[in-house]
């Protein structure tokens, strides 16, 4: 390739287009990448669509077309109730999570509350820890026989909360979604032109009024986006419905699907397919509406005047009370549940009726480490995250480069498709991929291997990688590409030799985020795992399902420990810092 280049460059004329090299190579690569992305997502969605119009299971050769599934879905009280519950949970949790997240973001980014960096770090940690771990921790601490519950009952005579209600569950879901709002709003708040708020002060507005009338409306794009992500997160939540919904006699769509994976009466594949299609349609409508709301965001790019440092708002005598509120909130929401989880892992069982010091044991851990099944599940999780994360990073890097740095005619559409998996709940993606594997013969060797998990996770977490890489690529001056092209490099060479090397820090960030995302996935694995390809989350749910909370907590502790070690290692060796 290069020999040809220099030979034709020796003359005064630049290499003619199409001469002396494969002109189609660039397009071929771009099409191949686009095709991979489309295939990945189709693998999850097409089988679901197909099954929804089949009268028998997708693998059953006697299948035939029917619209009866949709009719039966329209009449199914059980499914309607479950879907309604999911939407109620998602709505309330979005409101709660957004309010908390925005308040935290404002306090950390715009005031002089003491210890902001610590609070910011503590608020971000739940993003990298699986919801399952948090939910188990909440159960241990605030469940009906929870530690804190018993303490409060002893002190007050009653307990002001009940996690076995939809309100309680929504509050928990909201707390778990607050960190996402936090991180999205903080970025926006830091970029906010401080003269906006200064102007409001100079015309006489008191601080709270400025927050309400000026600050929040200006960061509205970030707010709307985070609300949508939180809403979808609430819909796809599996851990809280499983752990708290059952005793509350509340069925949610995800827990209903989960029960279908395990026990339950004869499953009706077609009906489930129809329900899932409906669910996805509603989510897609939300995504489109949100896109439309944000299209008018042009008016929010304000022209900056003098470069001025954003001045933190002085809380004055409110410094200490606000700090206290923040820290106490973080303590009760995240620190205590994690502490409870860790404690539970080291005791035979945890009950307020007996002191835990009498019950200390290594049993839970020896159970896990002496069983090849569970050791394998830990190993699988790490391998999938490390190896699968790397594969996903490479794929996403190439796809992002196609979207931002090429003249591929369907760039915008490719971006929409690459971001669509945000709208697919994890357990539904797993179900779809399972049906794909059952249906298409040449895919069947993948069933029960970790490869199918890597495929499913890659598809689900495309938006995560894209979100990390996209801003980095956008910041690289396009002239760098153009100069490479002008000296004769084609698009593919330019990407490999110029763009991607410059974007190295972005690639590391993407890898770290993808590792963490893969590591904490479990919902998508529900339908896809088999003996030999279990992962930590699935094993945790199995233990929980049979009531073995100790080993479940032990697995949670192991997962948490590996996560922390990885984050520290990433900071030290890859230079990737995870903070707001």
């Amino acid at each position, binding site marked *: 390739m290069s020999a040809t280049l220099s030979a034709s460059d020796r003359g005064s004329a630049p290499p003619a287009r199409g001469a002396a090299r494969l002109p189609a190579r660039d397009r071929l690569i771009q099409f191949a990448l686009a095709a991979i992305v489309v295939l990945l997502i189709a693998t999850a969605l097409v089988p679901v669509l197909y099954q929804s119009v089949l009268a028998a299971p997708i693998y059953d050769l006697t299948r035939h077309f029917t619209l009866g599934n949709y009719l039966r879905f329209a009449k199914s009280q059980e499914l309607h109730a479950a879907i309604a519950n999911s939407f109620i949970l998602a709505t309330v949790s979005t409101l709660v999570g957004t309010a908390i997240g925005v308040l935290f973001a404002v306090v950390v980014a715009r005031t002089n509350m003491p210890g902001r960096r610590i609070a910011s770090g503590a608020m971000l940690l739940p993003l990298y820890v699986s919801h399952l771990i948090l939910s188990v921790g909440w159960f241990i601490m605030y469940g009906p026989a929870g530690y804190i519950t018993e303490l409060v009952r002893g002190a007050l005579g009653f307990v002001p909360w009940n996690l076995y209600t939809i309100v309680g569950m929504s509050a928990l879901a909201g707390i778990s979604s607050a960190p996402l709002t936090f991180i999205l709003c903080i970025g926006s708040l830091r970029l906010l032109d401080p003269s906006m708020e200064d102007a409001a002060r100079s015309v006489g507005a008191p601080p709270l009024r400025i927050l309400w009338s000026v600050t929040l409306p200006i960061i509205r794009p970030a707010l709307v986006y985070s609300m949508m992500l939180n809403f979808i997160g609430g819909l796809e939540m599996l851990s809280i419905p499983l752990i708290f919904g059952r005793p509350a006699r509340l069925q949610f769509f995800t827990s209903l699907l989960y029960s279908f994976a395990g026990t339950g009466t004869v499953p009706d594949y077609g009906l489930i397919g129809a329900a899932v299609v409906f669910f996805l349609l509603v989510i897609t409508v939300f995504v489109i509406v949100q896109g439309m709301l944000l299209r008018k965001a042009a008016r929010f790019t304000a022209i900056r005047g003098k470069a001025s440092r954003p001045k933190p708002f002085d809380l004055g005598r409110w410094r200490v009370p606000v700090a206290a509120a923040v820290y106490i909130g973080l303590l009760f929401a995240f620190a205590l549940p994690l502490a409870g989880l860790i404690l539970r892992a080291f005791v035979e*069982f945890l009950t307020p009726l007996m002191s835990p010091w009498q019950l200390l044991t290594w049993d839970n851990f020896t159970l896990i480490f002496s069983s090849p099944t569970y050791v394998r599940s830990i190993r699988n999780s790490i391998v999938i995250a490390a190896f699968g994360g790397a594969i996903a990073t490479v794929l996403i890097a190439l796809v992002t480069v196609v979207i931002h740095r090429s003249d591929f005619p369907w760039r915008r559409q490719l971006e929409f498709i690459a971001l669509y998996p945000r709208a697919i709940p994890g357990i539904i993606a797993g179900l779809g991929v399972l049906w794909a594997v059952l249906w298409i013969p040449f895919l069947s060797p993948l069933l029960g291997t970790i490869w199918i998990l890597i495929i499913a996770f890659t598809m689900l977490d495309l938006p995560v990688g894209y979100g990390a890489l996209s801003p980095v690529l956008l910041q690289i001056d396009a002239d760098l590409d153009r100069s490479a092209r002008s000296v004769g490099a084609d698009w593919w060479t330019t990407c490999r030799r110029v763009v991607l090397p410059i974007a190295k820090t972005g690639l590391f960030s993407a890898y770290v985020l993808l590792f963490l995302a893969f590591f904490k996935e479990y919902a998508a694995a529900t339908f896809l795992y088999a003996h030999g390809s279990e992962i930590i989350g699935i094993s945790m749910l199995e233990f929980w399902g049979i009531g073995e909370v100790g080993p479940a907590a032990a697995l949670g502790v192991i997962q948490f420990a590996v996560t922390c070690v990885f984050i520290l290692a990433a900071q030290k060796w890859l230079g990737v810092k995870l903070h707001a």
Partner: protein
Amino acid sequence: MSHRITRRQACCTIPVAAAFALHASRPAGAAGAQLADDIERSKKESRLEIYSNVGTLNWEIIVKAFNTQYPWIRVEALDIGPEEAFERYYAESASGHHSADVIVAASPTSWLRFIGKGELMPVAAAEAAQLPAWSKPYPGLYTFSTDPLILVYNKLLLPVSEQPHSLAQLAQLVASDPGRFRDRITTYDATAHPFALAAHWTYAHVRGWSLLDVLGPATRPEDASGSMIEKITTGEYSAGYFVSGTSTFVRTLQTARDKLIGWSLMRDGTLVFARGIGIPKRAVSTASARLFLEFALSHAGQIAIGQAGLTPYRPDVKSNEVPYLTYGSIAAEIGDKNVIPILYDRAMVTDQNAFLARWKKVYGM
């Protein structure tokens, strides 16, 4: 797992080893030829897949004993729930995967459906000659264990005088103070899976609804025995009925837990599950499967099953050979007429919707 073995179990391993020595000699005749053939063929098979609703913890002991006799067979025993075991088999074998070679499940309706689809291989097990007729309801379907559903209670929340030893006693306790026990009693959720359905259906069918009607309003149903036991331990529940004995026995070995929970057979009628074992028609490792089936039904196998926390029923297994219960010891303790076997009754399938409708009303769901 070694620390979990009590002295009683340790004593048992010696007779077990002796038993292996006895049975290691090959039986004569046609059965012997079949066995030799199976042994040879099993060496060429890749692995033995068992789908079950028996816990992984329980399986480890049984598989270890099996491997003492047949060390070359690699066993993968999955605990995936009564319905899922069959569903997975249907889906995977249809697409040509190596699915279950043996199914061990306590789920009468699922077995009936399985047999109805013609998926059961009609194996004639040599050991079956030693077993009672009721444990071999269909050609190829045998019984793995007979597991009782028992009462479990929290010893700190219920003083000795209140600790129930019969269902009637528990019902009386609940009726005496409804406020105290509301949502503090637990049992299986009959709508959750066939195992739970079979338990409640059988009890209602044999003993009637009177006690269930009293207990229903106070009960909060759960999906799994493990959850029931865990929550009785933490005090979320005061007591549970129809709790799986299998799950309870292994947990009482944790010495500290012993201080907190106690259990009892239901003196006025204990449900006993016949946990079915069979070989699917589309099994891949058929020789290994047959060897396992024979082992499970043999004296040595039944003892291993007993050590694992399940309840053996083979008549020549004495109660001092296993750490917990045998079918015989249950009958001896509460009387033959109070043993309520859960059988393969087609009416369970046909009656299902009507039964569940009434059940949901009683349990407020």
